[in-house]
């Protein structure tokens, strides 16, 4: 008999495993020659095999295997030179054969990892690198689509099977650190990151509450109720499913080669060479991030941000190409100002009214001290209005050139100090904020054309004399 733990007595640790279903981008399906196309009319892309007509056999799609190998390599997996296909049996209307072909015994890739960044710290500005283990990658058939027509109490099946969505099942359990893992539940069919996070959070808390109240966790499947934000049991009336896994007899083992094991004189059409595929991989994100840090001296978290936004890295690199400004300046402008504007208006990089060239020109003006940084921000705002003007044009139109005449500035400072003796007195008393007021006054008098740093320097000099 176990003793009922008091609430909050021990710490809890949660273990989460994700099963991610991602559709391969290919022209035809995994085992049949029929095409893959989004939004095609229902059942218009169904081959005899897809309809499970008797006598039809699966034929493996080369491109899908290559995609799986690429994914495995990108995720640092060990690619199994031999992998096997199995049948997973269950009855459901969107599964015409009564089984799904998958890789249960020996999948194509195992034991990989993925490094990613978690935003933490104040203002979520810190990025902590973390690593997640990839247990395995397997090729499998997708099922059809079911549309439930509750009005007519019927279900319509579309066997086209091209959904293009990511689908995630989460396995969640809790335990006390140091003790064995707890019973896990499975939450199925989550298809947004936001709901995935909510479902996991909810389920972890539910399990903790249940256990702290002396209850137990059942090894069951649950679904996530989007509106209520909770998970609910999907208890199968007949009990737990036994999928009766069996080797797929119509598909021989999938054998992959590398440069050393490739048989001499092998027909390249008939074999897949892992090393050759590795060469076609683009630069992986972790390598890119490392390169960015080394090359441009940016912080690691900056590299994460640059890569996490579609098109941002390219934008950044294009600006770097065209500007004389220091990379750190570019980084700051792209990640803070540019990205800030995009997020505020919920725009993608591709929809940006400011081109890399425009930003590069702006940064050059800043770099040559033609304008102050405050003025630069003003110019940027104007650019965002999409009126077709270049930064140079905006600067001259609005007369934003930095005041270059130091003498005139000194005179202005002098007169401002004379005009505001109270502020000067505050300053002399030691009030640090007073100087900002003075700087502000002088700036205003110059219509922001003076560099605040220079104003400050002049004022301080005067005050100390």
């Amino acid at each position, binding site marked *: 008999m176990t003793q009922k733990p008091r609430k909050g007595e021990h710490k809890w640790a949660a273990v989460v495993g994700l099963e991610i279903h991602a559709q391969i981008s290919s022209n035809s399906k995994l085992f049949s020659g029929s095409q893959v196309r989004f939004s095609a009319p229902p059942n218009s892309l169904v081959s005899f095999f897809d309809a499970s007509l*008797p*006598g039809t056999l699966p034929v493996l799609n080369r491109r899908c295997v290559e995609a799986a190998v690429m994914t495995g390599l990108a995720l640092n997996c060990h690619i199994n030179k031999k992998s096997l296909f199995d*049948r997973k049996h269950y009855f459901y*209307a969107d599964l*015409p054969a*009564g089984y799904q072909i998958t890789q249960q015994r020996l999948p194509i890739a195992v034991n990989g990892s993925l490094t990613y960044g978690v935003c933490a710290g104040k203002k979520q500005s810190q990025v902590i690198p973390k690593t997640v283990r990839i247990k395995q990658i397997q090729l499998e058939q997708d099922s059809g689509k079911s549309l439930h027509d509750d009005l007519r109490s019927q279900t319509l099946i579309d066997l086209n099977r091209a959904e293009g969505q990511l689908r995630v099942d989460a396995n969640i359990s809790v335990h006390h650190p140091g003790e064995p893992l707890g019973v896990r539940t499975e939450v199925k069919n989550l298809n947004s990151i936001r709901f995935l996070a909510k479902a996991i959070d909810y389920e972890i808390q539910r399990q903790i509450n249940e256990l702290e109240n002396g209850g137990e966790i059942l090894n069951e499947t649950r679904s996530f109720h989007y509106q209520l934000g909770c998970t609910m049991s999907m208890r199968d009336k007949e009990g737990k499913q036994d999928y009766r896994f069996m080797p797929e*007899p119509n598909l021989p083992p999938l054998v992959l080669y590398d440069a050393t094991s490739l048989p001499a004189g092998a027909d390249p059409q008939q074999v897949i060479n892992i090393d050759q595929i590795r060469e076609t991989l683009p630069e992986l994100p972790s390598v890119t991030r490392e390169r960015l840090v080394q090359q441009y001296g940016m912080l690691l978290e900056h590299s994460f941000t640059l890569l996490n936004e579609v098109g941002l890295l390219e934008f950044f690199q294009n600006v770097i190409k065209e500007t004389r400004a220091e990379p750190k300046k570019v980084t700051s402008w792209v990640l803070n100002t540019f990205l800030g504007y995009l997020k505020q208006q919920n725009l993608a990089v591709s929809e940006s009214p400011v081109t890399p060239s425009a930003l590069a020109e702006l940064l050059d003006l800043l770099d040559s001290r033609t304008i102050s940084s405050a003025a630069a921000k003003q110019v940027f705002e104007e650019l965002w209005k999409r009126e077709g003007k270049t930064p140079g044009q905006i600067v001259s139109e609005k007369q934003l050139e930095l005041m270059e005449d130091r003498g005139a500035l000194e005179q202005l400072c002098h007169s401002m100090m004379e005009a505001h003796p109270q502020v000067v007195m505050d300053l002399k008393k030691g009030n640090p904020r007073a100087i900002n007021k003075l700087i502000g006054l002088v700036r205003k008098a110059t219509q922001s054309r003076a560099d605040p740093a220079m104003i400050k320097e002049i004022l301080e000099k005067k005050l100390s004399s």
Partner: protein
Amino acid sequence: CYYYFLQEILDTHDSISGQITPTELCQKCLSLIKKTKFLNAYITVSEEVALKQAEESEKRYKNGQSLGDLDGIPVAVKDNFSTSGIETTCASNMLKGYIPPYNATVVQKLLDQGALLMGKTNLDEFAMGSGSTDGIFGPVKNPWSYSKQYREKRKQNPHSKNEDSDWLITGGSSGGSAAAVSAFTCYAALGSDTGGSTRNPAAHCGLVGFKPSYGLVSRHGLIPLVNSMDVPGILTRCVDDAAIVLGALAGPDPKDSTTVHDPINKPFMLPSLADVSKLCIGIPKEYLIPELSSEVRSLWSKAADLFESEGAKVLEVSLPHTSYSIVCYHVLCTSEVASNMARFDGLQYGHRCDINVSTEAMYAATRREGFNDVVRGRILSGNFFLLKENYENYFVKAQKVRRLIANDFVNAFNSGVDVLLTPTTLSEAVPYLEFIKEDNRTRSAQDDIFTQAVNMAGLPAVSIPVALSNQGLPIGLQFIGRAFCDQQLLTVAKWFEKQVQFPVIQLQELMDDCSAVLENEKSASVSLKQ
């Protein structure tokens, strides 16, 4: 009147060039099909299709563009092969009315060679059985029941007054194809062979029944029983004909990933073996079992002696795991059946019940109505073996035993044996009334005993008709070859066929009123050369 027995495809091919037209030949066969309707060999007779094909064949011959040896030759196809536009039932309610939209690869290959498709032949439901008695269209009758050879012997021992109540089974499950060929309604027929379903009826109907190596011939379009053991089988009246058909069918198919890619030499012409002195024949001692009838045993022994007397080496070999093969076969067969039959739910094609309360209820009723007891029994057994808690002890164990059985053959062949010689069946064909005294499962276990280990090992094998029993019924013997040595196997079989000179079936009553289509007379075993 004179009657013409067209034994050989090649000779008929030559005849078509000169004397008989494809249409005439087609009509003759169609007429024979009608006359032999009582045999119940055919489920569907594709008369219009065949006549149209005959017409096209005729045009080709006229233009000197015959497609090959099979052009204009009538063939039949077992009703578990998918035929485009022609009903394919597997003798089951589940597929009654199902008209496939595509041809099985082997069917397409025959059609591409100009063969005429006479129809789809009867079988045990979903090819499960060894008698061709358990299909929804009723049992197939063995033409030998009506042969002069059998009838004369029966007159000596009169049993019942009603002669037709004692008709004999063809064996199975490709009994319809066997009866079709045996009764001269076609020259060749496709069967399927999973545990002996082509060789068994061949032996009972006095035919050549050939099972190719697994992977040699495409299974695309063959509605599967056991994917890892099924092959398309060939039934003909002589070995040369089987070789011609094999030549048309063999070869890799991109639609079937289990076919092998090594190039096959075509055409599949068999050399005439001058002598067998370089040959080594193996006799597996475990195949000598008490249930074997004395007649078959005697013929087996005589055959071995024949090879020896002609200079071949005849060795006793051991296949030590033979006694486990039946039980191993049943576990693997039922497991695959359970899986393969899962697609029959009434949703996309075939029978669908009237219940629409829920999907599950619909599935259950459709499958209960669509499948017979035999099929349902195998599905239930198979699902049992595939359950998580049973999988290791049954399925995996059976696969391991299967490997041992396959290795037995490898070892036998490695010891210098070229070909194994065994019985095909325990005895000659039995009367239907006697056959049905035991259930399908019992019969299958008994009748498959010499044939099914071959399927587990994926080897080529052929049943050759040897002689008539005391009752005037055919007895066949089986040759088993090395994997992918199908040509060598058939070469040995051809030599043996020539030696034994098996008699032609005399179906007097059928031929009596047949009009002489050809002027040439042909005797039973002398082939006609131009």
